[in-house]
């Protein structure tokens, strides 16, 4: 049965840029384990000959014509942004990472 360690939760928190203190890690790690166990119970009923399903419908090749549709205006696109500068989304400083 899956058991998620405290270190794994810390690593996930790092990836998600969430700061968790020791008390929070102690609190969350067992909870995440319970969630994983619940999901894993599916594998108890799924036998080897049943392929994993990623889509409920047996449909393939749904394609769109390569035709331009109107976009949002910049005002509309930025209307939900907490902060804007120079018609761009202003986001906080990004630490220790770069794409």
């Amino acid at each position: 049965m899956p058991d998620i360690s405290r270190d794994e939760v810390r690593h996930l928190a790092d990836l998600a840029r969430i700061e968790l203190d020791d008390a929070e890690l102690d609190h969350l790690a067992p909870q995440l384990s319970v969630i994983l166990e619940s999901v894993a119970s599916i594998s108890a009923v799924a036998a080897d000959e049943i392929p994993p399903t990623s889509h409920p419908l047996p449909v393939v090749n749904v394609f769109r014509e390569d035709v331009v549709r109107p976009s949002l205006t910049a005002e509309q696109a930025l209307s939900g942004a907490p902060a804007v500068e120079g018609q761009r989304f202003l986001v906080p400083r990004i630490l220790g990472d770069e794409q």
Partner: protein
Amino acid sequence: MSHTAPELLTFEDALERFDPAMGLEVHVELNTNTKMFCGCPANFGGEPNTQTCPTCLGLPGSMPVVNGKAVESAIRIGLALNCSIAEWCRFARKNYFYPDMPKNFQTSQYDEPIAFDGWTDVEIIGDEGPETFRVEIERAHMEEDTGKSLHVGGATGRIHGADYSLVDYNRAGIPLIEIVTRPIMGAREKAPAVARAYVAHLRELLLGLGVSDVRMEQGSLRCDVNLSLAPAGDGSLGTRTETKNVNSLRSVERAARYEIGRQAAILAGGGSILQETRHWHEDTGVTTSGREKSDAEDYRYFPEPDLVPVAPAREWVESLRIALPEPPRERRARLQADWGFTDLEMRDTVGAGALPLVEETITAGAAPQAARKWWLSELARRANELGTELSALPITPADVARIQALIDEGAINDKLARQVFEGVLAGEGTPDEVVASRGLAVVSDEGALGEAVDRAIAANPDVAEKIRDGKVAAAGALIGAVMKEMRGQADAGRVRELILERLG
């Protein structure tokens, strides 16, 4: 952060002790009208955040739909790289937390790429002439580009030390094909040249397919260079670094060379290589440490539930295969033979990006050497002055062919032709219109020409006397005088004949 250059081993010393292995990842932005999963325009250079919609902004409730044209381009790229095309494949979510994707994931393909197991032959010019290297293609998969971040504040303007970032999502969602090679081994000291030749070759191939603008300076073709070293003759693979931001052919070669020297110095000193992303700095010619590379499991890939699988019908794939253009190398060889160009002439033509232009000019009726001459001399010079590509000059191959035809007909000479080029480039109209409006036609009126010759002889009796005495070389002075009087609009050969007729 410190940018002091670390110690390097010279390239020669490095190769004495180590064998480099390279993996090249090339990202190609497709030139579709719209983005990968929505109908926003996919063109370059719009005002910030004017090419977005709920889908590419990742707003709740929006649903992506695959661009069929992008799938077609992906299949054609795969076929041109001799890949197998998946009978069934899916998109996957690559999860990460970085604001260049508003969705917090990038829609990509994980273990089911649309194309896989291919190869392509790359040519480098070695000491003993052209050499062919086979580069094996591991996969080519479909994904979407990310938004563009501008880092504000901080000492360098780069991300480290930035106070905040500004993001433009116009580019987020533009169809991207990532082409990944298998490790390229055994190239030894030619590894950097092979890397460069591979990217140049891909660019030509993609241009031939017409699927991308492949402009490295605009980022529509980007290359990551993965490089590792193993002890010479060992045949193993060492720990690799992934150098990003390598955005010119020259940089691909330089970055590979630099990493060989840097890693060799560390390994020779008993150190070990950290698996990490590194950044290439065009200005200083060094790579610096980025972040430690995330493992695939950190991205927690899973099949994209909002998109149905892609299962290209075999008939479709075969029809695309049949319609593929001739591969670049075969095409070049065929054209060179047809045109009778030397290796050097062909290489210069290709290098100047003039191949399609020369070809069209020849198709429009010009002799191959004439077509080559105009594009590589007069027009290359003009393009250079204007800082533009040959293909961007406001003149068509048909115009060039027409100007050459006017020369062949004797209506103008080479010198006048230069003025016709000037006029056409200045937007004065077609070659014929420029000849008419500028009054450039050669005077073929024998009477007028004869009178001009007579006047020149009368005005230069001493020169005339020399020619009568058999000093034919002196005729040059009289020809010059006649051409001047005719304002260049005469056939110099005919003028010479007329002078010698009179004085011979």
